[in-house]
């Protein structure tokens, strides 16, 4: 079983409140914000490793991002991934979901034969939940999003459960296929010191635009149909009345104000 897992390096969500808008340049300032592997992508990798342990095979992680994203692949190596591909080129920067999916698809076609491709259901930074269905379309395979369990049927079909708002769906999927998993599927393993020491023995294949044989017109910001028109800070104005007296008094004052404001 050849499994590909798509992982993305993202700014640590715990630090999002420190990301500010530079009033002059109108650009987001995120210096000093640490980066991490998108959390749910680790669940996707864990699912892949568990399948490999059961049926044998190979797990390859692939990530598109700046050179620094090699750290994400190294973390995946520590967890147990066999191979890693980093798609890194200035031309790839600024890709929207369609173009991200397109670039990942081209790389997978070129380098990674697959039976199964696993993704996280959403990224912490852009969080569109769109890459998985779009990747599947570019590879002409079926997809299922929001997957909470993966079961193996006979031969080349899976039975997966997809979480829904108010229940779930059961779906029979023929391989090869793309699945996007959610965080309820498993608990990602924590690499041991020995695992971490093995990272150095594995090699990351780094590819740019030329290696994929793509045109700069089709990737990154230039190749993306959607564009950013404005970026602005926004907060709805609230009254911000603070009551900090004794509990009984504060509660009474709060309810009094709510009554005055006709909010009850």
């Amino acid at each position, binding site marked *: 079983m050849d499994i590909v897992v798509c992982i993305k390096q993202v700014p640590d969500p715990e630090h999002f409140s420190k990301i500010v808008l530079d009033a002059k340049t109108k650009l987001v300032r995120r210096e000093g914000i640490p980066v991490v592997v998108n959390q749910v992508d680790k669940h996707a990798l864990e699912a892949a490793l568990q399948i490999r342990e059961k049926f044998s095979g190979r797990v390859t992680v692939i990530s598109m991002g700046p050179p620094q994203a090699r750290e994400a692949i190294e973390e995946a190596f520590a967890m147990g991934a066999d191979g890693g591909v980093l798609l890194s080129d200035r031309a790839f920067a600024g890709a929207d979901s369609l173009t991200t999916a397109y670039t990942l698809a081209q790389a997978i076609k070129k380098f990674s034969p697959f039976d199964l491709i696993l993704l996280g259901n959403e990224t912490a930074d852009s969080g569109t939940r769109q890459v998985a269905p779009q990747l599947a379309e570019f590879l002409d395979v*079926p997809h299922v999003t929001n997957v909470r369990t993966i079961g193996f049927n006979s031969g080349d079909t899976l039975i997966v459960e997809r979480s829904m708002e108010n229940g779930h769906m059961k779906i029979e999927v023929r391989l090869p296929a793309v699945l996007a998993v959610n965080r309820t599927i498993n608990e990602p393993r924590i690499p041991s010191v020995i695992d971490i020491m093995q990272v150095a023995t594995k090699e990351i294949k780094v590819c740019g635009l030329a290696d994929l044989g793509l045109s700069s017109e089709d990737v990154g910001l230039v190749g993306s149909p959607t564009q950013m028109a404005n970026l602005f800070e926004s907060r709805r104005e609230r009254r911000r009345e*603070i009551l900090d007296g004794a509990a009984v008094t504060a509660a009474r004052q709060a309810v009094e104000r709510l009554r005055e404001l006709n909010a009850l």
Partner: protein
Amino acid sequence: MTGKNETWVYAEQKAGHASKATLQLLGKAVELGKETGSPTVCVLVGSGAQGVPRELAAYGASKVYVVDDPRLELYQSEAYASVVAGLVKEHCPEIFLFAATDVGEDLAPRVAAKVGTGLTAHCIDLRIEKRDGVPLLHQTVPAWGGGMRIDIVCPKHRPQMATVKPGVFDLPVPKSDSNAEVVDVPAQLNEKHFRARTIEVKEEAQRETPLTEADAVVAVGWGAYSLGGIQCPQELAEAVCGTLAGTRPMVDSGWIPPDRMVGQSGKVVSSRLFISLGASGAMHFTSGFERAKFVVAVDQNPKAPIFQVADIGIVGDLREVLPCLTEEIKKQKSSKG
């Protein structure tokens, strides 16, 4: 690609009725259409939903493409995407809106990829602005956990596609005398469209009012853990005739069911009253109740960011404040009669 000057809405239906989220989108589509001079058209896929087009007409649809086929009774990702993309390629509307639901979120991206156009996820506002004389759909999304907004445009590709969470737009007032042209479209499908086949859909009955429709919401944060259970918050929720909800940690720990999470990865609430109990005020969370009319927050940390987005903030320990608050509200309500 130039196409028809039409605004499309993907219509979801359940048990023979259009979903609320669809009708909210229709209201917005009609508004947008007034600015661009475009009619509103719906696409309805499924099996046996005869009454739905009339409903869609009452909310502003002037035409409904109906793809009715027994094989499409349950949502089938590839088959649905294929028939919807087929219609888009044939008519190429200017704008195509989907609700960001279990189905919409899964379907819209695959349709966009088939058509080769842009798609903006989880918009919180849509409006038309002219650029070089050409009307463009400005699609506002929250960014970086919710503290910022980005307007996204899709200048060169059509349709301009977006998904919108339920509850972001208000339900319009229906007009009972409206009619829509109904166009039946046959589904051209083969085995290949069912490589992923939905074989079963299990839905639990809704226990209470869905969060997106609640008139009052009481949301518990991690600080409510100190209460040892949800009984007290539940009592407050009942006192304000509201629905109990929570932050992600409370959902992760199993105190609050997943469909009751407020925020970026959860629900957008537009209730009249929103009470936050022991939530620090992460933007991921606060972006979920921006549309609420009045916000009350209780937290023991006077510096908690939640107080920046509250109309009334009570600084104190929930174990002391909550019983008093519930008591006072009950008194107030009973004195009102």
